[in-house]
């Protein structure tokens, strides 16, 4: 089995999804932790310091390339799999009751992922592209804390962010344990723990993310 065969096989493609997925899961921990600094309620001082570090440190910026690489692979591979899987049943059932045998979110990773992609485009547009342009053009660095404050005063934006977080929750809720299953980790004793950890992870990360727009919107933090 050559490398090419390995990665183009059905299971190899899943490995790609699982590895990049786990990588993104790790990234979200960092992302959520730093963002959570806003709850220190220090007017964004700590948060902005971290944000500055993240956008200026060369090592972090190098890792960032990897992150984007992983993200793009995850997205492209995901879409390809979605298409391929869709074509494996050329004639559909007239009557089908998938709810009898599986959870909706486990069947909806493609849709959830697509929603996340749309969300991500918006999100990057809000918080990433501008800061990068500023960084490279030598403009005044953005104060992300202030930007968040401004952005999250809008009903629409808060609504979209909450929707994005909900999509993220289900995507992670299934994705976490699914990635480990794909990597062959299944054990009577440990799988329940993994599932719990996955649930805990999805709940904590998504709660943190959801609290951010809400906190600004309802002025829980000043």
């Amino acid at each position, binding site marked *: 089995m050559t490398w090419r065969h390995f990665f183009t096989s059905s*299971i190899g*493609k899943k490995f790609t999804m699982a590895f990049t997925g786990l990588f993104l899961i790790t990234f979200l921990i960092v992302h959520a932790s730093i963002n959570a600094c806003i709850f220190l309620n220090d007017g964004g001082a700590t948060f902005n310091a971290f944000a500055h570090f993240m956008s200026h440190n060369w090592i972090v910026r190098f890792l960032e390339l990897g992150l984007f690489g992983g993200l793009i692979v995850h997205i492209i591979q995901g879409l390809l799999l979605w298409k391929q899987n869709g074509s*494996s049943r050329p004639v559909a059932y007239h*009557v089908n009751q998938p709810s009898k045998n599986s959870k909706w979110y486990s069947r909806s990773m493609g849709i959830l992922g697509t929603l996340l992609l749309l969300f991500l485009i918006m999100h990057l547009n809000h918080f990433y592209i501008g800061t990068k342009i500023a960084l490279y053009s030598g403009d005044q660095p953005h104060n992300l804390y202030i930007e968040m404050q401004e952005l999250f005063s809008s009903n629409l934006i808060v609504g979209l962010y909450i929707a994005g977080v909900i999509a993220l929750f289900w995507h992670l809720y299934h994705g976490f344990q699914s990635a480990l299953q794909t990597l062959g980790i299944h054990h009577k004793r440990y799988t329940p723990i993994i599932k719990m950890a996955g649930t805990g992870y999805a709940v904590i990360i998504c709660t943190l993310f959801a609290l951010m727009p809400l906190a600004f919107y309802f002025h829980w933090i000043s």
Partner: protein
Amino acid sequence: MEHYLMNLTLKVWRQKNNQAKGKLETYQVKDISSEMSFLEMFDVLNEQLIVEGKEPIAFDHDCREGICGMCSMYINGQAHGPWQQNTTCQLHMRAFKDGDTIVVEPWRSGAFPVVKDLVVDRSSFDRIIQAGGFISVNTGNAVDANAMPIDKKDADNAFMAAACIGCGACVATCKNGSAMLFVGAKVSQLALLPQGAPERESRVLNMVAQMDKEGFGNCTNTYACEAECPKGISVANIARLNSEFLLAGLSTEEK
């Protein structure tokens, strides 16, 4: 057990042959006993059709006791119908009530082309086994059966994986039409037993390659297959297939 009679409306997929276009046809059956098996109800319908001068419905079935894996109906949107860990032939009419409408379709998968009506071609499963679902031991080569003690836990797990009847309900159910549960069960059985060790790596690589060639979809861990498997084959076998493939794929010497 108390029994009752019922009248039913059946909507059944009819397709003359592999090339023809099929469609759902509607039939009525009367006075069906709750004690009948689902296939006995089909027998009644077929007898009725023959008497009316129509062609009976072709469907695969043989042992009618849930072990040969030949019966394969998608009943009201579920492989083998509403009961859990059950084959179509074991489904009994007490699962339904008077006046019900039952929709019956063949397994749907690009890798299981329809032969006629509800009959599909599952030879792709045979070809996957041909690719490596065996232990290469010619007749007469065996050592004494007790020469190699096997951990009871491994033997039991191997047995549970080996209980697969190759019906294809996993593929029919999976939204991706994936055959990972079928392949995982065979790979697991032979990976758990010491006898399977010599061909462990080539087996999983070859079987997965054949599975891909047949056009089955990719597993996305919805676990619908396990829920609908008549023998309750666990998705732990899919995980084992994954890890076997990972280790074999990484340790192969090809560049």
